[in-house]
């Protein structure tokens, strides 16, 4: 193409596409859409009447653009992300998990994310309203953040004044990890009926504990680090791994599987606990 050859384009098509792009950026009133569109032009070319026509054009093409509380937004695009029924179900499951197991803060972020994904998909992802918020997830997280003690009321009418450490997932179940009477306890979510954040400062918790353990033999090559682990040292047949903040019960259970190929080095308290645990296990057999 020579320099003076002009590539022919269709101006009105471009304006329709520009309108669609703005709508894909978020939920806007007509004035906000006009402001955004005209700010990207040398002179204002968009007005209420043409933009309404362009929105209608998009709708005619099957793009769902509802107007709620005077705000327009793209709810779905027929040629966007082609979600299968199974994928839609998975997204619903994810929304359920967020609704039931995460705090309001995370729910708000998730709502924003699912709205964005919906905009680019061929199906409108139904937003699940949080009818029954489990407030103790939120309260528990706040208590950890603000170093406060909590009082847990269990369904068996038992009260525990304890220090919150972390929320753990294992095999689809949620556990509240707390320090109670100096010992780490894992309380299943199903056992809790109420939670109260107390105005009492909590001390340090063992949730931040770093554990060093040594592996020997074949396991050194087979082992793959978890997300909270790093190598302190590694040779062909021996390595030392630093594990940070893993739930103690789960960590002990996992390290026990490695039998004599594994040794806890630090902290001394964990090493002593493992010793006692093995003594107790041997005691089961009268040894």
């Amino acid at each position, binding site marked *: 193409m020579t320099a003076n050859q002009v590539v022919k384009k269709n101006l009105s098509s471009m304006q329709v596409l520009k309108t669609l792009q703005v709508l894909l950026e978020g939920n806007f009133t007509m004035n906000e859409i006009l402001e955004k569109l005209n700010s990207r032009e040398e002179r204002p070319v968009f007005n209420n009447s043409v933009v309404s026509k362009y929105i209608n054009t998009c709708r005619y093409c099957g793009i769902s653009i509802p107007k709620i509380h005077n705000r327009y937004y793209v709810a779905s695009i027929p*040629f966007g992300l082609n979600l299968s029924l199974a*994928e839609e179900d998975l997204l619903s499951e994810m929304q359920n998990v967020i609704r039931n197991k995460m705090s309001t803060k995370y729910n708000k972020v998730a709502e924003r994310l699912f709205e964005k994904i919906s905009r680019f998909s061929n199906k409108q992802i139904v937003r699940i309203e949080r009818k029954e918020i489990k407030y103790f997830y939120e309260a528990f997280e706040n208590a950890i953040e603000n170093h406060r003690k909590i009082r847990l009321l269990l369904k068996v009418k038992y009260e525990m004044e304890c220090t919150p450490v972390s929320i753990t997932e294992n095999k689809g179940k949620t556990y509240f990890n707390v320090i109670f009477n100096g010992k780490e306890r894992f309380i299943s979510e199903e056992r809790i009926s109420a939670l109260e954040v107390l105005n009492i400062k909590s001390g340090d918790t063992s949730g931040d504990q770093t554990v060093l353990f040594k592996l020997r033999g074949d396991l050194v090559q087979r082992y*793959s680090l978890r997300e909270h682990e790093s190598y302190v040292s590694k040779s062909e047949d021996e390595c030392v791994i630093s594990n940070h903040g893993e739930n103690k019960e789960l960590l002990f259970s996992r390290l026990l599987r490695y039998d004599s190929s594994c040794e806890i080095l630090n902290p001394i308290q964990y090493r002593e606990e493992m010793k006692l645990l093995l003594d107790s296990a*041997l005691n089961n057999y009268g040894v």
Partner: protein
Amino acid sequence: MFKPVDKKDLSQISLTGMRAIVLIGLLMVSPRSLEEIRQIFINLNIMEEENSDDILRIDLNTIKSMGFEVSRASAKTDYKYVLLKHPFVLEIAKDELLVLKKVYKIIKSNADIQTLILFDELVRKIATFISDSDTREEFLGISILKNFDINLIRTILSAIKREEILDLVYRKAGAKVDAVKEIAAQNLVFNNDKIYLYGYNLQSEDSVVFNIQRIKSILKIKPKKEDFDQKVIKIKFHLRGFGLDTPEAGETVVESGKNGFIVEGVYHNEFLATQRMLSFGARCTVLEPLDFRNKIIAKLRDMRTIYDSESSC
């Protein structure tokens, strides 16, 4: 995907705008030749039979000027226009990635392989709309299967369903050479972010567990065999409580009382059974068989001996 234009609606819409959107929609679904686009446009009443192809070329130029990258229709592309890149950009914020990671971790803790594959496919689909390469990589990394060979997993799953025999190339951890194994594929298990193939080795006549990331390739898929007698190990044990654990497939609680449970478990091989018993720590006492009980006692003794000396750290 699109409905034909009713002439009476023309005053409310932009016909050229509709052509641009339809063109984008068609190219987003699959590559198209000029003739295919022309025919679809005519069927949708957004182009007349007598119009020249120049209209379509202008439409293509229009979408290109809006940031859509479209290849030339050449012999290499079977004379079809291919959409290489589009400006519909999904921006994922850091806090949104964090929530996705958290929710995936929860789902993963109790998911089967099919769910993990489904999640991986969903993540890959969504990632095509993320333009920032760092964010896209981090987003793809949420799925544990990012670095797995999904086709290999699918082949094994299909073999398990049909009870087929696989000739596969496997390299054991620490081994310097590959080995060819003849395996009756029985189950795929997700554990600790790894996927294991449980099967029966027809050469060594033994149950095996392979980390599938160590399977280099599948050489042959053969029909099922009926004539092998798989050995399993049956263990009876007393468990004072499952703790954070739950019964696994093959484990049956045969008695429960104040002091815990009597469980009977059927395990694929002795190594897995040993690991399972040890993981319960002091909550577990193996009752039967006696030789396995003695092996567990010996293991516990060996483990305890390690702690007799002072830690070197």
